[in-house]
């Protein structure tokens, strides 16, 4: 304690988000060099477009995932929500430009409902988020496989533009994703719910003692996450020109979590943000493009990704260790060191209520 008693100015250190962007920049630089060696220009229009398009889809999902993870929860159903949304959109629009608005509305409604159920199951039924959303995913999967045999519905040309138009090197979809990111950031910075998400994720008990209804932010986060996944579904539909039930097989659920964590958000909640996530997504996209330019074997990509994600998180963890030193006054090992299984925050049961 003594050493802390006097608030000596701490040496300036780069915030995690800063670190992530630093990593992004350095990866871009290295990538550019490597690509140049192969006679390609990584920052040429073609590749820029490629990177940005790749990032937009995962981007939407990861932004939503960030909110959920900030609340110390988790959503493994996003992939299935995507698939469902794309189908809902395609079947509702049924190729009729007049029904675009209707289609979008339908997607938002459906995905929001799913998010709501997720949130309620996690908070009210106290089912561990990991299981709850995994189960929800299975439920949707069963529905899709039974109801639709393969691609269904038809997206009107007008809406397909959402998937293909671009201003200079900036694809519309990527722009939309960035817009969504900005909205999410503002949401976290400017609304009470946003503040409370950090509170609940950081320490549900403290939040409760401060009069926050700990369940609300979690439910909200789940709803927003699903809606974001829904948006991703819309993008899928726009790009495919139809609804695809099989996108759920593309592993966006786990990849989004990886992106979030890569973006420096703490898997156990309460710290991090959307800005970092966007960087995380971009990092993955840049890597993908570079790998493509170098014609890296697709399976080798998996290996590299695995290693990179682990390495990155290990680095953040390192930084976390020395930080905990000054936290000795805060109740011991909250949530365990690395459980990371997204325990839903809820009021401590009676026998633990009074903290001595």
């Amino acid at each position: 304690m003594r050493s802390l008693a006097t608030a000596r100015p701490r040496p300036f250190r780069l915030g995690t988000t800063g670190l992530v962007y630093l990593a992004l920049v350095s990866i871009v630089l290295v990538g550019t060099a490597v690509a140049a060696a192969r006679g390609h220009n990584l920052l040429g229009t073609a590749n820029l477009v490629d990177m940005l398009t790749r990032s937009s889809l995962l981007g939407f999902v990861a932004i939503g995932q960030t909110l959920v993870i900030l609340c110390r929860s988790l959503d493994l159903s996003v992939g299935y929500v995507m698939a469902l949304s794309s189908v809902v959109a395609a079947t509702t629009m049924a190729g009729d430009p007049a029904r675009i608005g209707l289609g979008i509305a339908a997607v938002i409604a459906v995905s929001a409902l799913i998010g709501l159920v997720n949130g309620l199951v996690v908070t009210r039924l106290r089912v561990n988020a990991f299981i709850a959303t995994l189960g929800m995913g299975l439920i949707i999967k069963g529905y899709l496989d039974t109801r639709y045999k393969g691609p269904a519905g038809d997206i009107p040309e007008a809406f397909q533009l959402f998937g293909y138009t671009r201003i200079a090197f900036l694809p519309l979809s990527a722009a939309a994703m960035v817009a969504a990111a900005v909205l999410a950031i503002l949401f976290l910075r400017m609304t009470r719910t946003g503040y409370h998400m950090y509170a609940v994720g950081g320490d549900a008990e403290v939040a409760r003692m401060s009069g926050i209804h700990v369940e609300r932010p979690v439910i909200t986060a789940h709803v927003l996450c699903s809606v974001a996944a829904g948006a991703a579904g819309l993008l899928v539909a726009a790009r495919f020109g139809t609804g695809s039930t099989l996108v759920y097989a593309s592993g966006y659920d786990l990849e989004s979590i990886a992106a979030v964590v890569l973006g420096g958000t703490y898997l156990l909640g309460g710290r991090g943000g959307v800005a970092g996530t966007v960087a995380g997504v971009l990092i993955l996209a840049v890597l993908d493009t570079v790998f493509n330019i170098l014609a890296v074997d697709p399976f080798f990509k998996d290996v590299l990704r695995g290693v990179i994600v682990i390495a990155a998180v290990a680095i953040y963890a390192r930084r976390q260790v020395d930080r905990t030193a000054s936290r000795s006054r805060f109740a011991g090992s909250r949530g365990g060191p690395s459980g990371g299984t997204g325990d839903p925050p809820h009021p401590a049961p009676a026998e633990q209520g009074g903290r001595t």
Partner: protein
Amino acid sequence: MRIPRALLAGGAAMSLLLTACTTDDPDSADAGQELTPDEEWFDAEEYENQLAQRDIEPEGPEDEPWLQAIEPEMADTSEYKLEGEDAEEPTVCFSNASVSNPWRVTGWITMQQQVEVLQESGDIGEFRVSDAADDDNQQISDIQAFVDAGDCEAIIISPSTTATLTPAVEAACESGAPVIVFDRGVNTDCMVTFIHPIGGYAYGADAAEFLVEELEPGSTVLALRILPGVDVLEHRWAAAQQVFGDSELDVLGFEFTEGDGAQIKDLVTQHLQRGDVDGIWMDAGDGAVAALEAFEDAGKPYPVISGEDELSFMRKWQEEDITAIAPVYSNFQWRTPVLAASQILNGEEVPQEWVLPQQPVTEAELDDYLERNADMPSLHYAKFGGEDLPGFPDAWQDR
């Protein structure tokens, strides 16, 4: 506090269960009986067409089935002919859906071998490949990347899904470079040529007809399918339903197995516990052996089975002398696209729709094909058609 929570739980669960049930398609709800293929995947005209094509003598060199074509309508490609140094080693770009199953792996090797030959001869230069790992969105990006790169003299595409890649392929066509699509099709005819074997209906029918022939009326048949929603596979099943529908056979139902041997064996074992199974229809050969083993382990006689020209199955077939047929989804089609590319870039005309022959392997040819592939690994495909390529056989053996 507790009761409402419980209610809420029940409510949520019920509503979900309901949504799930109310959307049960009749045909899948009681798979046992339903035997009219659902129109979503059944195109009667195309069906008849494919069945007819099986008996048509393909045009083209006898011993090179990958260059044969059934009733070709030639397309003029002079506009794509490269002049001057463009013609020197033109870059060909290939967007591959994936190499995530043995059939694709085998084909992919064959294609690479063919490419080497063409590169030797200078017909193509750089062969740029991107693999989408079965991710439609990824493949769309890949194709866009090719288009944006602008230096692809020809673009070969093996779509991961039919419907979803249509826009991307159209975009590729607009880029001006000749586009070659093979294996699965797309809902557009903007490409210069679409290369594929006769197709899923023929495949499914070959298998089903064989079972109908070999089995007594009233015998029971179990259908094993990989997964729903993939058109090539759905067509096979649709055709089978059509054939079985007109037969006396009693189809127990169909199961989705994801091609996983363990699941296949589980499911078959369970069906055998319920009663006899006289015939097995499969929409792809993966795990056919597992299905047969289920009979062995249950001490039941082997069924009449339709597998695929995958060696593990054919070897089992030979050893145990089973009544079987190996429908073929011609693996040698992987050679054709690169050859087509070089032809197009030389301005030679190619069939607009390049329908390759697709002959099932029957009892009669079995030994011959096993002979020819004696040294090949078990997950290799008999009709890979690469015997004359320089890399043979090593390239296919140590993959």
